[in-house]
């Protein structure tokens, strides 16, 4: 970004300079406004986690308090909902990333019959509205209740299903830009296929696998629609929020929302800093 020297002769001059700056940097000014808009609801969520609401709803500002943070798990069922969400997201992201990475490897590395069909099957879940995914899975599960009761396992199956496509797309993007000569070199130097994979291929696509893992985790922990259809009487965090929105919204919901936000953004910031450093050293 270029900065413009602002002449500080008079207040009028400053104003004129500010206007001139804005005109020369329309795009920059617009983008900053855009980011302010993007962050506005997040600011509200964070601010209202410190609110001290008098009634059942947390919609108007009443006064500042630390209480909600100190007693974050004072609301019945909130803690178990978060634990369930975390557990599902953890298992679903690991399984989906594993399955998705294998599919991506096959798609990029091998020519085989049925490539187009495979691509289509990966693409279709991404282009199906969530409500259709959720409703159709429920229809299947309603027919299987004798062997598979609707609850933890049905949520998990559903989450793995909609995460796979995201994992395939993420890993595939990285594999396409991958220099195959490195693998050939390893094999020329006597490494067998397995060694080549673990010592050369895997470390090189590790960032993509990590990205897929994080993406799947984020999608899973945030999912409401598909889960809502297939959760039976189990309550994940988004389902808890949905129920609360109709009867009472405790500020603890904002506390959890803020906590997840802060953890996720810190992790991503660390990643950005780390990559910038690596880029500088490279």
């Amino acid at each position, binding site marked *: 970004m270029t900065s413009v020297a602002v002449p500080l002769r008079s207040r009028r001059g400053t104003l004129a300079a500010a206007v001139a700056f804005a005109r020369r940097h329309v795009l920059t000014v617009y983008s900053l406004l855009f980011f302010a808009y993007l962050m506005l609801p997040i600011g509200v969520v964070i601010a209202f986690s410190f609110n001290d609401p008098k009634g059942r709803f947390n919609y108007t500002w009443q006064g500042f308090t630390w209480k909600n943070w100190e007693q974050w798990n004072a609301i019945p069922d909130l803690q178990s909902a978060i634990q369930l969400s975390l557990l599902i997201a953890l298992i679903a992201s690991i399984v989906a990333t594993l399955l998705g990475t294998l599919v991506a490897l096959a798609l990029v590395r091998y020519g085989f019959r049925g490539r187009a069909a495979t691509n289509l099957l990966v693409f279709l879940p991404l282009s199906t*509205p969530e409500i259709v995914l959720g409703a159709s899975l429920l229809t299947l599960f309603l027919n299987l209740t004798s062997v598979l009761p609707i609850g933890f396992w049905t949520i998990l199956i559903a989450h793995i299903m909609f995460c796979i496509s995201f994992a395939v797309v993420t890993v595939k993007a990285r594999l396409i830009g991958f220099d195959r000569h490195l693998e050939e070199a390893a094999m020329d130097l006597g490494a067998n296929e397995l060694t080549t994979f673990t010592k050369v291929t895997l470390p090189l696509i590790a960032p993509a696998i990590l990205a897929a893992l994080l993406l799947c985790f984020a999608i899973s922990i945030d999912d409401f629609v598909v889960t809502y259809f297939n959760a039976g009487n189990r309550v994940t965090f988004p389902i808890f929020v949905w129920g609360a929105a109709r009867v009472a919204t405790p500020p603890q919901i904002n506390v959890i*929302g803020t906590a*997840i936000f802060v953890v996720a953004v810190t992790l991503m910031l660390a990643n950005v800093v780390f990559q910038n450093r690596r880029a500088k050293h490279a």
Partner: protein
Amino acid sequence: MRVFHRKRWLTPYLLLAPGMLWLALFFLVPLGFLFYQSLESGNIDFGYAFTWAWGNYSSAIRSYRGQFERSFEYAGIATVVAFLVSYPVAYWIAFRGGRWKNLLLLFIVAPFFVTYLIRTLAWETILSDNGFVVRILHDIGVLSPGGRLLATGTAVVAGITYNFLPFMALPLYVSLEQIDQRLIEAAEDLYASRWAAFIRVTFPLSLPGVVAGTLLTFIPAAGDFINAELLGSPTNHMIGNVIESKYKELLDYPAAASMSFILMAIILAMILLYARAVGTEQLTG
């Protein structure tokens, strides 16, 4: 390169098998079940039976035509607004971001990390009748006295636009970032004005991102019911709200199933039209 396995042709299928099996079992098979159910008739007390009840489809369209049309209208407006709002920012990050690019992208994704429902509830607070937005709009006369934002179509469209904005902004950024700067310089060397260079060179080269962003925004938006439920009133209900209540509250499975299929069919038809216009490779990557 040496050949390591005699049955090398099997390898890709072994790699594909677990993932594809999962998608077949828990995506394709359920769609089959949903289709079967959409042709059932009966009621929840006496059970449903398969009767080739194609009438479910025609009665779904007849009874809920308004909700179908509203879904595509809201999703369409939200997609166009999201495109207009985020293109300049994607452009700014791609061409002026410099070493801050990754950080700025982080800011675009950051709202994603507050749970969807909580984000929408925050908009409910912001747009509420005693919130500052409504007060300002009253003061400058945009909103008539007593006029409100919450429980209107505007609020629903605004909510949808906000919630799916990153789906638009990120693909736009990716396609703009990949543009070879020298092509734009060449256009300017050949005496194209900055605007002409943008219209004739930059924008056409960013079309893959426009296509991806449009689809990624429009598809989830058309099936959404959360924004209409939390920010709108029953007069703003979309087809997602109808499917949700038929499925979860009224237990009218055949009606819900036929509506899901109609929704999916319309969306797929739109994607195919789009694919014919831009080429399938760009869609499936």
